[in-house]
């Protein structure tokens, strides 16, 4: 019977292999062929990738994606840390604060996209109080708004991960530091922050990997215009708009490789205890 236990994992594994691994392999394979809705498949080797490398639109997508990942994640960490510290404190109405903080996380990204699209709309947006500028016409602002919307939407998740880390720090450590005369900044810098390292690492890596997959915001807000195209959107256009299967899967393969690299880094740097079960 003891031998049967592990088999309870089999159905889930089957699903994952069938619906996750097989498609990945399929995409990688397809990327080596030239095939569109009108032209049948023919072997292309790395041709698609070469074309991608030369394509300025693709390069810009990659650039903005990287820019997006870098900026969002850093901002989410900072704001998330601040929010986690607030959520960790004990005060009346903490439950309400937590519930409100969860709202941006709970709503569909599509809705979040509309919210921020509306705020910055040329005609009806509330930002018209601030300036007459056409926000989404400018690449700089369009990109900034997308990043802003993402930070607003996913900061709660980062905050919760860091909150989990805060909850593992024993109160006595902070109290001992207070008795030793350390002020709040020192306590934070020398005790809280170092002990938060694992949680911050987890949040950092989860979010980085997730940020590479940004799509909803770009689709709804700008359809990729004004230099806001990102890799997944580029791939979507190629695959479902232009129906160029070779190119589309090549782009998707690039995304996958980027995400896979980050995953490997994740598995190496995060302490292996996080992956282990206690038996």
């Amino acid at each position, binding site marked *: 019977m003891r031998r049967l236990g592990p*088999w*309870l994992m089999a159905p*889930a594994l089957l699903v994952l292999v069938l619906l996750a691994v097989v498609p990945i392999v399929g995409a990688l394979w397809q990327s080596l062929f030239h095939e569109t809705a009108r032209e049948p498949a023919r072997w292309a080797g790395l041709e698609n990738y070469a074309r991608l490398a030369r394509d300025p639109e693709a390069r810009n997508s990659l650039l903005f994606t990287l820019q997006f990942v870098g900026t969002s994640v850093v901002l989410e960490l900072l704001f998330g840390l601040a929010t986690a510290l607030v959520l960790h404190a004990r005060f009346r109405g903490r439950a309400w604060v937590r519930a409100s903080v969860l*709202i941006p996380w709970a709503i569909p990204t599509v809705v979040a996209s509309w919210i921020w699209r*509306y705020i910055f709309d040329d005609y009806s947006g*509330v930002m018209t109080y601030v300036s007459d500028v056409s926000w989404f016409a400018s690449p700089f602002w369009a990109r900034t708004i997308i990043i802003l919307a993402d930070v607003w939407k996913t900061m709660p998740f980062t905050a*919760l991960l860091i909150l989990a880390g805060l909850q593992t720090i024993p109160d006595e450590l902070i109290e001992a530091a207070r008795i030793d005369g350390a002020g709040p900044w020192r306590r934070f810098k020398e005790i809280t922050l170092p002990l938060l390292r694992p949680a911050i690492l987890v949040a950092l890596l989860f979010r980085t990997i997730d940020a590479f997959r940004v799509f909803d915001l770009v689709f709804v807000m700008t359809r990729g215009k004004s230099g806001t195209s990102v890799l997944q959107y580029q791939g979507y256009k190629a695959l479902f708009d232009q129906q160029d299967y070779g190119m589309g899967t090549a782009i998707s393969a690039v995304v996958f490789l980027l995400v896979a690299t980050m995953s490997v880094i994740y598995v190496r740097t995060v302490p292996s205890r996080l992956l282990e*079960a206690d038996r």
Partner: protein
Amino acid sequence: MKGAAAVIVLCSVAPFLWFGMASLKGPQEIAQRPPTLVPRHPTLEGYRGAAEKGIFGWMANSLIVAAATTLLTIPLAAGAAYALSRTRIRGRRLWLGFVLAASMFPQITLAHTLYGMLQAVGLVNTRAAPIAPYVSLTLPLAIWILASFFREIPAEIEEAARIDGAGPLRILIRVFLPVAAPGVFTAAILTFIYAWNEFFFALVLLTRDDVRTLPPGIATMPGQYTFPWGEIAAACVLATAPLLAAVALLQRRIVSGLTSGAVKR
């Protein structure tokens, strides 16, 4: 602290509230520039328009898809979580790593082959279609949450059940799942929310309006040049109402679920 909390709440909620206001404005008031802060002539026209565009149909579809996903994911995840946390498996770390990795696969990379597979069995543009990628994308998190709850159950309870003659399936169903009920609940909520909110696969696999779920429906509401903000806002309010209710009621569970497995002692 209270001040900081107020700022955070404001920043989190204000944009949403603002949009909610728009749902109550008629097209004239919407077009005003700069916009009014509070609707002067509140109206339900936006909601009517949203209803005409089919929002309730989308909602029903979202409900079906999300519920079905949850009902499939949780049992699969429970089995895997039990196997990974309570049995002696060789290469447990590798399996866990694989499961975790599967949650990070980019949707675009899965899309092409998955579409082909679903097309081959004639499931494209049916409500069943998105359930396939949803289950595989929510399994890892559900497994993670359930495994972390299972790990908390004392070994002796499991041993007592073994001595009482229960096999692994019975132990899982009669002992572990009930005792880890909060974890099951949390995993279910998170899975449901994911399926409700998911956009990419819904967009790609459901192109007909009668099977569309909320996200692609709402995303494609605007016409070529016009943004019917009143309707869009109304649609968004309706789409998120159940989620907001869930968050308000289940805030503690959600927080505990998301924080539970994240950093383990």
